[in-house]
């Protein structure tokens, strides 16, 4: 039976990481080259981990599915990165960042991990500036900060609306430097198909070369997954098209526990779906809600254009329901309120799934120029996608899947319950609880890669020794054969529906049953429907082409096959958690006013699931969450 020891060091929270760093074993510099690591993924977490480990002297191989490591989806993060630098002298501290993050996560994260995240946050900024990341500066030449949701201080560092891009290019440049020096072997256009576990320890991976189709395996002393989130299980999300769950799901099937899979973040301000052809959704920065007013028509079936609807027939529902927060109500509240008015038949746009975000009043008050200065690039992007000019007509927005807080379970060392398997960044579950605050994803990815894994993996190496297992081992041959067989099965599919069409169907079922609002009946319905869709996939989908070539239809089919199994796990987790927390509104658990109601007495734990077979109920393990340093409190928005 798998155990769940979080390995949080003893002692006061402020001293845990220092103490742990002293207690961990060190590898002699001359011995470091004897140890090897496989890093899967080249986003913020993967690139920073690969570069940092190679700098220390370990042998590193890094894999990514894109044509270059610079294209990982961290690149699309817009807003910024949090750090407790307190440069603005406005009352920030490590303690406050820690507190805000635990509270923002609705008290469902592990305290010790979050405190450490806040502790190393300042060093991340130092590191990035030294790499030449061009953060925004003020006229005195020092770094500028802005504020973000869930905090009363300005602690967010940013590089225009492209912070993720600049941080990723910083980590990519460190990675590229090591590739150039020959200390990292980089494998782009490569997809991980399986994890190889020998005698209970992670020993390597099986990959498919996406150019030649060759399936082969690699062995190492540690396997580090930094493969991002799984929002694409919903088909439509703000993730890149290629983002998938395969690496983490395959690790789950090999014994790693999947924690809190139902914790997904739904972002309120995305450009709405325009039709069935939609392939992905685009986020419009939350900052727009500073000046835009959100409304829908008062009456159902309103046919007039937005600007022809008189003031008295508009419902500024956020201002009405949450007078003190108004349009700046938190992400979860705003998302749910938008869904509610659309479900009432008052949504706008051709599909009826959208609400207005209107800048008319701000433009009248401040002038178009001020609005252009503040949001010009976002307005341009909106116009490019929708063909509508938001200076003249209100934007239309709707909530969309954006981030997954859940992921593989890891201990304080970021190691999963499978020894030798480490998980970083969005792929793990560790720091954001049930809801992630804006500008914290970048912080976590880089904290994990630059400042945590270099310590903890060394300790693991010393304690476990150099591996003598090579890819000649039977388990490797078996895993390779299984992967080859899996590809053959997919290539044999000659039905009547495309894989994308089936994925779209899965997404609809999940969005309806396990989206913003959830209830037992809806979740059970989804659980009944998912196996039927999975069967349909294996009976009636079509995959063209062969294995020994670039075959995007095959790639997509492999990812969707895993989504079809993973979706069930996600719904099981949601069904078990009969409480509303973070962005998850469980309809059975609400206050008299219809607000989310957390249930600390029964659900103050991490749910970690163990695989028991396809279509079978996984086994639930619980890691109890204890809060010694923050008081559990209700989040109020009114």
């Amino acid at each position, binding site marked *: 039976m798998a155990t769940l020891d979080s390995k949080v060091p003893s002692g006061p929270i402020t001293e845990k990481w220092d103490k742990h760093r002293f207690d961990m074993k060190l590898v002699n510099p001359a011995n470091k080259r004897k140890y090897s690591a496989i890093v899967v993924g080249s986003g913020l977490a993967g690139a920073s981990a690969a570069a940092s480990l190679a*700098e220390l002297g370990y042998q590193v191989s890094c894999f990514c599915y*894109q044509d270059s490591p610079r294209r990982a989806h961290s690149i*699309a993060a817009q807003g910024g990165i949090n750090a407790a630098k307190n440069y603005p002298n406005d009352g920030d501290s490590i303690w406050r960042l820690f507190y805000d993050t635990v509270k923002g996560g609705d008290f469902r994260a592990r305290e010790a991990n979050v405190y450490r995240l806040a502790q190393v946050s300042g060093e991340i900024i130092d590191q990035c*500036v030294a790499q030449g990341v061009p953060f925004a500066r003020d006229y005195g030449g020092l770094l500028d900060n802005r504020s973000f949701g869930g905090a009363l201080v300005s602690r967010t560092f940013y*590089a225009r609306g492209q912070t993720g891009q600049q941080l990723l290019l910083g980590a990519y*440049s460190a990675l590229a430097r090591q590739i150039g020096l020959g200390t990292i072997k980089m494998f782009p256009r490569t997809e991980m198909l399986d994890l190889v576990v020998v005698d209970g320890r992670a020993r390597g991976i099986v990959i498919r070369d996406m150019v030649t189709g060759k399936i082969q395996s690699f062995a190492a002393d540690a396997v580090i997954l930094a493969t991002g989130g799984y929002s694409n299980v919903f088909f439509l999300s703000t993730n890149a098209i290629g983002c998938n769950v395969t690496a983490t799901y395959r690790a789950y099937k090999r014994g790693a526990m999947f924690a809190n899979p139902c914790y997904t973040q739904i972002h309120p301000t995305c450009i709405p779906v325009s039709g069935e052809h939609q392939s992905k959704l685009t986020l419009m920065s939350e900052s727009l809600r500073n000046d835009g007013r959100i409304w829908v028509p008062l009456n159902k079936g309103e046919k007039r254009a937005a600007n022809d609807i008189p003031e008295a027939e508009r419902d500024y529902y956020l201002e009405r329901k949450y007078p003190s927060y108004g349009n700046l109500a938190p992400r979860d509240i705003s998302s749910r309120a938008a869904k509610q008015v659309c479900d009432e038949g008052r949504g706008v746009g051709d599909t009826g799934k959208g609400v207005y975000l209107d800048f008319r009043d701000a433009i009248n008050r401040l002038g178009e120029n001020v609005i252009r200065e503040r949001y010009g690039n976002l307005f341009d992007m909106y116009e*490019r996608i929708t063909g509508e000019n938001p200076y003249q007509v209100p934007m239309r927005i709707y909530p969309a899947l954006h981030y997954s807080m859940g992921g593989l379970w890891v201990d304080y060392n970021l190691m999963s319950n499978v020894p030798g398997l480490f998980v970083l960044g969005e792929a793990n579950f560790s720091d954001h609880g049930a809801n992630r605050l804006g500008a914290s994803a970048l912080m976590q990815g880089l904290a994990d890669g630059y400042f945590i894994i270099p310590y903890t993996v060394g300790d693991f190496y010393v304690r476990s020794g150099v591996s003598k297992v090579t890819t000649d081992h039977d388990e490797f041959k078996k895993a390779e054969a299984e992967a080859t067989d899996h590809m053959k099965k997919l290539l044999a599919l000659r039905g009547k529906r495309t894989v994308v069409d089936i994925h779209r169907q899965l997404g609809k079922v999940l969005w309806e049953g396990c989206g913003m609002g959830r209830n037992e009946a809806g979740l059970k319905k989804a659980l009944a429907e998912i196996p039927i869709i999975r069967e349909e996939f294996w009976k009636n989908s*079509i995959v063209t082409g062969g294995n020994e070539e670039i075959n995007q*239809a095959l790639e997509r089919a492999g990812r969707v096959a895993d989504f079809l199994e993973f979706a069930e796990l996600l719904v099981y987790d949601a069904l078990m958690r009969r409480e509303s927390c973070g962005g998850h509104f469980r309809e059975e658990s609400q206050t008299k006013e219809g607000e989310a109601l957390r249930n600390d007495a029964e659900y103050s734990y991490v749910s970690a699931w163990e695989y028991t077979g396809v279509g079978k109920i996984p086994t639930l393990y619980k890691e109890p969450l204890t809060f010694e340093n923050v008081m559990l409190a209700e989040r109020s928005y009114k």
Partner: protein
Amino acid sequence: MMNLKLKVWRQKNAQDKGKIVDYNAKNVSPDMSFLEMLDIVNEELILKGQEPIVFDHDCREGICGMCSQTINGIPHGPERGTTVCQLHMRHFKDGDTIFIEPWRARAFPVMKDLIVDRSALDKIIQAGGFVSVDTGGCPDANSLPIAKDDAEDAMDAAACIGCGACVAACKNASAMLFVSAKVGHFAKLPQGKIERERRVQAMVKAMDDAGFGNCTNYYECEAVCPKEISVRFIALMNREYLRTINHLGRKKGAGGF
């Protein structure tokens, strides 16, 4: 709804000669992105048991730099400052004929259909597109003030998404806008100045070794750049290169990293 005629480059693999093949794109909504239009065409091809057109793409929001198609002869198509993935069908009209081809450059061999190999760009970065700092032990981020104007200039250059449209647009297949964006980014910052001589020489050498051509000031690169990076950075890179040669004609920082 529109109906369009597509003329698409199909090439089975790097060895295949390749040819233009005609397709019809039916019932195209003006709200679709260009890639979503191709998705529809591909869905139809798959249902007929034919191989879909392969093309690189990922984020579909104009920032990852993966998409790379020459549309009617223009890399990333007719809209200025826009990647293919952010180009929408409302810029075309019913009955249009659209040519879709891969990037064309000796340093970017076609791998299949519209996918090319851009690893040469990574090799240039690996040669010197970084600051040589290891993780940890860096000075406080505010210990070194940087004039706002310099930081903004650096950001203008750093906005490059590495798509390679500049190369595809250039009649010399020059990568100088790409290389100069990285050289310029670091040249504007004190952190980058320590290694400026080694960097510019190593990157230019890697660029030449990869088979890219030289700049002859046509500025097609700037015109197609989805991030509208200015050719002034090419001038800056040339100055950076020249200043590595001292008055005795000796090169500073030769030998790379």
